[in-house]
């Protein structure tokens, strides 16, 4: 028996339910707010400076591109604001204004508009921008160097750098509860594990992001980190540590799930997410970089068109 429900489609004209890109963008922004607020509390006005400048400059770059390319004004969909916010969440609070503006330029102009605007970008614009600015100005984005002047009421060492240089013993002092509550160095909006998880669950429940990608990304990180730890528990930190440090959570819920650079079918989404998680831990544990999330996301973005070739068999196809 075939599934009757799948074949029921009414005749046009259809009624728009009112859900638009705008709604989607602002809901994702809303889901990110708790994590950003903790960044404001920890790093004060300098974090607010980075976030406000990133959001506004991203909108203004998009407006400029709309004007230059003589296309319709698209800033109303909130997507540029979302790009600016997500980029700011990855940055250290000490980042200078020109680097913020350069970052949003790369994200909006190079990462999004050169590809043809929303829905056409092959790579996550935020990941493209962050990868380029971190490789260009390494010292500005090394958290240990960038956050020297902040009096933090927790261990003032970037956990992933400590794990990479000194092994698992150096990060034993970070309890999972501390990491979950954001008591760790990192990006303005990337350290508050609980806030990011709450935001992610909200977005998954509302259907704004795909749970298949987010959860398999986290599962990929967990399983790979677990295998490494079993292999060498002195050198490699455990899976809980990898899940709650660096950009794992913001990557899983807010970056890997970006729609135009991720697959649409079920099996490809699972492979895509899991590959991202596995790559993240591979880069962290045996790669050259301290954190691997951003580069892992760019790699899975590359895989996306290939993965989407795995399709369900078309109904009624004759061979």
């Amino acid at each position, binding site marked *: 028996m075939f599934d009757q429900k799948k074949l029921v489609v009414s005749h046009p004209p259809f009624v728009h339910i009112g859900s638009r890109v705008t709604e989607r963008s602002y809901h994702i922004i809303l889901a990110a707010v708790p994590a950003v607020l903790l960044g404001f509390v920890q790093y004060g006005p300098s974090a607010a400076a980075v976030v*406000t*400048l990133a959001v506004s400059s991203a909108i203004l770059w998009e407006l400029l591109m709309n004007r230059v390319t003589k296309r319709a004004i698209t800033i109303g969909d909130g997507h540029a604001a979302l790009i600016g916010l997500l980029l700011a969440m990855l940055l250290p609070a000490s980042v200078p204004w020109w680097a913020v503006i350069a970052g949003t330029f790369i994200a909006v102009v190079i990462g999004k508009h050169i590809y043809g605007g929303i829905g056409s970008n092959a790579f996550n614009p935020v990941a493209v921008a962050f990868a380029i600015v971190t490789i260009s100005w390494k010292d500005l984005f090394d958290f240990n160097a960038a956050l020297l002047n902040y009096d933090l009421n927790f261990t*003032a060492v970037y956990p992933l750098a400590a794990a990479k240089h000194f092994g698992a013993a150096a990060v034993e002092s970070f309890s999972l509860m501390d990491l979950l509550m954001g008591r760790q160095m990192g990006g303005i909006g990337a350290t508050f594990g609980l806030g990011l998880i709450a935001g992610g669950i909200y977005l998954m429940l509302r259907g704004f992001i795909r749970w298949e990608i987010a959860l398999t990304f986290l599962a990929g990180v967990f399983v790979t980190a677990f295998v490494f730890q079993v292999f060498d528990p002195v050198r490699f930190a455990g899976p809980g540590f990898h899940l709650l440090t660096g950009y794992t959570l913001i990557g899983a819920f807010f970056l890997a799930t970006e729609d135009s650079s991720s697959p649409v079918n079920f099996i490809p989404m699972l492979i895509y997410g899991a590959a991202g998680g596995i790559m993240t831990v591979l880069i962290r544990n045996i790669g050259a970089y301290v954190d691997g999330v951003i580069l892992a996301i760019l790699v899975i973005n590359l895989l996306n068109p290939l993965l989407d070739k795995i399709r369900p068999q078309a109904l009624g196809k004759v061979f």
Partner: protein
Amino acid sequence: MFSKKELQLAYGLAIILVVLGAVCYAAFPQKTPIPPLRLLFKVATGNVLFDHQTHGSAAGYGITCRDWHHTLEEEETTDVESCSECHAPGEGDEDVPKRADALHAQCIGCHQEFEAGPAECSACHVM
């Protein structure tokens, strides 16, 4: 395309946040506190992240300012001069150690004396 409300929100966000961002950047510039909290010595063999606050505070290792900064007067805690303000780099005076030797002697000497702190090179020179 977009409703007037959506566009107004985007324009409003852009204008308000750009002003806020500019004000925050102008009003709260990045400054190194005196005394500093942490210092990063950039060297070719691996940067050293030094926790100045823990070494200098009574709750930490309790090293006084004069123990380390020999130009300071008694009870003086600010106005720490850079080495190069008195000793020109490469001046060739044999009595004056090179900066790296001086820092090594102070760090390693203290760690050995108190049998505490890192001993291996790679425990300090990491990044």
